[in-house]
């Protein structure tokens, strides 16, 4: 079994090293990221979307109302004999 000291010594080697231009490469990527972020238009609150959602919700409420009315009618007829 190897001693911890030997392992420590082995692991103290810098197995890989940062290239000299590493900072520049990272900063180029950051700049590119920022350019992409700024060039993508932000999705602004669209009034149409708001109306569309309202229409969907209204339609759903009316639809559910119709179904409930139908169920109530069936029950009423059944109960009346």
């Amino acid at each position, binding site marked *: *079994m*190897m001693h*911890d000291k030997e*392992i*420590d010594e*082995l*692991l*103290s*080697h*810098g*197995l*890989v*090293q*940062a*290239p000299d231009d*590493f*900072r520049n*490469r*990272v*900063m180029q*990527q*950051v*700049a590119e*990221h920022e350019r992409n972020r700024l060039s993508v238009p932000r999705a602004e609150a669209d009034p149409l979307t708001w109306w569309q959602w309202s229409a969907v919700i209204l339609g759903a409420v009316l639809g559910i109302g119709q179904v409930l009315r139908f169920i109530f009618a069936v029950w009423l007829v059944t109960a009346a004999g």
Partner: protein
Amino acid sequence: MNSENIHQYNDADYLSGDPIAFGALVVKFQGGLFGFMGRMGFSQAQSEELAQETFLRAWKNRSSYVSSKAAVSTWVFTIARNVALNEIAKSTHAIVDEFDINTLQNKQTGTDPDKQFESHQSIERLQRALRYLSAEDRAVIAAVYTPDMTDRDVAFVLNCSEGALRTRLSRARKRLSNALQQLDKNDA
């Protein structure tokens, strides 16, 4: 960027969104980060890619950094750990397929051929041994041997208690030692 510029920033400045301050952060942590990636068993090319990914993530997520929770170094190495573990999970066979030993040798041992050969052998042996370890074992070793990291920092990076860290480190060291011995037997 010189070392004087590096020290004029504090943790909050590094992630304030100022590219110059962020560049200083890159310079400050790149050495440690490459050491970390190397101990994770990645090649030079892979380490460069993963270190870049780490810094880019740090930039993108800088608003999520909370200085009261951890030092900026701990935060960066936590990202690095996640990036490294994701990479290992993605491609378990691709680790250390090619190892650019030449760059390192010239930096570490100058041009003395004997020293270069010795350095080459010991580094290659270690890289091969690291390949036998699980991703978690490598992460423990990689983090513990990062300069300027306290046990508390390492425990934060690895998301475990300091007690658990000691147990995991002892286990990882034992496995690494076994792997090195196994390699020596195979080579004999």
